[in-house]
């Protein structure tokens, strides 16, 4: 009984909370009311049965709780939109007329006036419905620290007047980019092994694609996450990193890769040529067998031009090498200013090894080992260095 109820809660939390914030104009009050409503549901539904209309039930209960609270606290009433509320609002809500305000909510949470880490945790708490202790664990901080961060962010939204709305057209491109950056950041936090965050990011990506079906970059980000996440099981064996080319493809989630491919096709059909479209196309091409390295090198080149990122150029060099032009790749790597980046030295070492320049390769592996942080990657480099000696 508990598990399905918890699932309803996870699915409904973002929508209920978004609607309450839109209605009450206050994050803190909305969150408290939502929590109370879910607590009442947890007590009553197993006993009395789940209502026909769970969302309307939860929203009505939460609104009533909030109204009770406001009546007890008149100064708060003066600050909320409730004064303009029509009398009949306590009637049972009609599910079909409940507006979906999750987009307003995510644009508020990802407002650039909030610090990036605050945007991330607010999004996870409000839209994702993750509990404060879960978020604290995912980001390796204590629960009181995370709670403080969330309270501070909500206080800034209220005090600074950050609007609860989808930005107007002239602000939308920048603001959408900020939202997508937050979702992708959450995904990447989860990519290193904290799977719950990656799954949460995919869920957020799906919700965004549902809410903004005609935005190619939204579709492309979802495609990118689906394809990368589909390879999760194959990325580690006994805690060791497995490179893409050595991964056991039978461990890949083929259905999810197909779903990603379909999202990318939609993004392309919508005329998308943005950075997430490029990254998704790269991810999809990597899933092909055999990989089209020339095409990959061209896409990395385009992405590098667009982003000015040396790290992307490093990937471009790796693709050029796979396409057979190892010396061209090495020339490119040696132009990059990435001396503090262990992947640059590891890539350079690998290229030198392929060109039989063993001494230089050894020196480059050693430099990479000086810079590497993750134990799994250190062991990988040590294996490579040892193979060189044979």
């Amino acid at each position, binding site marked *: 009984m508990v598990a399905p109820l918890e699932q309803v809660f996870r699915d409904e939390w973002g929508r209920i909370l978004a609607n309450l914030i839109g209605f009450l104009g206050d994050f803190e009050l909305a969150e408290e009311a939502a929590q109370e409503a879910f607590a009442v549901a947890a007590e009553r539904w197993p006993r009395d049965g789940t209502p026909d209309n769970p969302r309307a039930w939860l929203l009505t209960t939460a609104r009533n709780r909030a109204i009770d609270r406001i009546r007890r606290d008149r100064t708060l009433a003066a600050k909320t939109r409730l004064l303009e509320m029509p009398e009949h609002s306590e009637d049972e809500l009609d599910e079909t007329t409940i507006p979906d305000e999750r987009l307003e909510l995510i644009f508020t949470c990802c407002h650039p006036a909030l610090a990036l880490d605050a945007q991330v945790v607010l999004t996870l708490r409000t839209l994702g419905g993750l509990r404060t202790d879960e978020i604290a664990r995912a980001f390796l901080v204590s629960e009181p620290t995370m709670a403080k961060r969330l309270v501070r962010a909500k206080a800034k939204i209220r005090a600074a*007047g950050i609007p609860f709305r989808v930005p107007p057209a002239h602000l939308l491109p920048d603001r959408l980019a900020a939202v997508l950056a937050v979702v992708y950041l959450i995904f990447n936090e989860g990519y290193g092994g904290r799977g719950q965050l990656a799954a949460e990011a995919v869920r957020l990506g799906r919700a965004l694609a549902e809410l903004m079906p005609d935005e190619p970059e939204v579709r492309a980000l979802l495609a990118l996450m689906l394809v990368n996440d589909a390879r999760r099981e194959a990325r580690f064996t006994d805690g060791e990193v497995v490179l893409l080319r050595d991964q056991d493809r039978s461990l890949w989630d083929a259905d999810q890769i197909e779903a990603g491919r379909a999202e990318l096709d939609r993004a392309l059909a919508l005329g998308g040529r943005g950075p997430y479209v490029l990254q998704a196309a790269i991810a999809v091409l990597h899933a092909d067998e055999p990989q089209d390295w020339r095409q990959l090198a061209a896409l990395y080149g385009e992405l590098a031009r667009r982003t000015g990122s040396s790290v992307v150029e490093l990937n471009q060099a790796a693709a050029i090498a796979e396409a057979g032009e190892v010396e061209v790749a090495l020339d490119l790597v040696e132009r990059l200013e990435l001396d503090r980046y262990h992947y640059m030295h590891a890539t350079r070492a690998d290229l030198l090894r392929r060109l039989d320049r063993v001494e230089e390769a050894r020196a480059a592996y050693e430099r990479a080992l000086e810079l590497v942080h993750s134990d799994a990657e250190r062991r990988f480099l040590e294996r490579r260095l040892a193979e060189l000696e044979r």
Partner: protein
Amino acid sequence: MKYILLIHQGAAPTPRDEEAWARLSEDEQNAVYADYKAINETPGVTPGLQMESPETATTVRVGDGKTLTTDGPFVATKEALGGYLVFEADDLDAAIELAARIPAARLGGAVEVRPIVEW
């Protein structure tokens, strides 16, 4: 909501520093005047007072009941406040858009936006 926009000139050229001001073309100089005029005439804006340069500032502190007076602004000259205005706006986005129109923001300075406490 009411916001105060605190204008920090930073490295932005102003007519007070003739040498720096002369580095702007005549068109750019006229644009600065025109932009400030347009901002001051924007509905919701209450123009503030322009301050003399930070070098003319005197900073006052009180410690143990004694007034301690020092020459110069509270922060380094470059970061000092140059002027302000008050803007009545619907929300932070509107205040940010106005702040972005203030020439100091694009010429090397910055504008800090803060809500005003209303009782």
